[in-house]
């Protein structure tokens, strides 16, 4: 019943505590502008630093676009965020997919930052859309198959 989680990791020279602080406290600075979900480029991306804290972007006009919330807050080693944007990148308070980020000291210094985005099967709306597509696809297939048969040379009939 699960879709494989997205897993990615990177190494940074910054020590774990600093990496955690930059990741959570300065997301609006390091996240590339124009690569978020809001209509306009973000002025800031805010992660309120406590369990239940909101996660959202704010544009230059002060307009907020919700991304999700904080589920686990364990500085400086672990953070779990709820990513609550659906397949069309719209905020859905009913949808919770988890993004876990861990910050571990790396051999030779710096930090190994690991990210896992899981519960992807909860993008139920997309699954329903797929089911609908399958239904209409079935109709199309019958039509295409009919056309195909019509085009076959008489000899094969």
């Amino acid at each position, binding site marked *: 019943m699960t879709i494989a989680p997205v897993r990615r990791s990177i190494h940074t020279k910054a020590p774990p505590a600093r990496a955690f602080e930059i*990741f959570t406290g300065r997301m609006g600075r390091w996240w590339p502008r124009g*690569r978020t979900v809001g209509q306009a480029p973000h002025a800031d991306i805010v992660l309120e630093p406590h369990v239940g804290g909101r996660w959202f972007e704010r544009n230059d006009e002060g307009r907020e676009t919700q991304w999700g919330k904080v589920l686990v807050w364990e500085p400086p080693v672990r953070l779990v965020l709820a990513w609550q944007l659906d397949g069309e990148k719209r905020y859905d308070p009913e949808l919770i997919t988890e993004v876990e980020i861990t910050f571990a000291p790396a051999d030779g210094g710096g930090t190994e930052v690991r990210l896992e985005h899981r519960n992807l099967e909860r993008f139920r709306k997309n*699954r329903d859309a797929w089911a609908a*597509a399958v239904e209409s696809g079935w109709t199309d297939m019958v039509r295409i198959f009919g056309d195909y048969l019509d085009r076959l040379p008489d000899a094969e009939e």
Partner: protein
Amino acid sequence: MTNSVTAVRALSALGDPSRRTIFERLVANPAAVGDLARSLPITRSAVSQHLRVLKEAGLVTETPDGTRRIYRLDPAGIAAVRDWLDSQWVMALGAFGDFADAEADAEEEDQ
């Protein structure tokens, strides 16, 4: 034309009543071979063969789950979301790494 060929292959794969039933079960829920065999009046190896045909027709995919393999519809919608998230996180983590590295360098110089 390629679409028609794919569609014809998929349609012939679904021409078999057992395969059609298996496909419809997977529309409702992903399942392992054993799950399907238990609820259908055909053998486990017959289920496996049908699944292989459905897979070759591009209708279902399989993923390992411990010692089992779970079959599901090739969920184009979810796969697209997953791909988007994956590229989003590659982009975001890359940018974060560059930023944190630059901060670490600057702090080193300050000391």
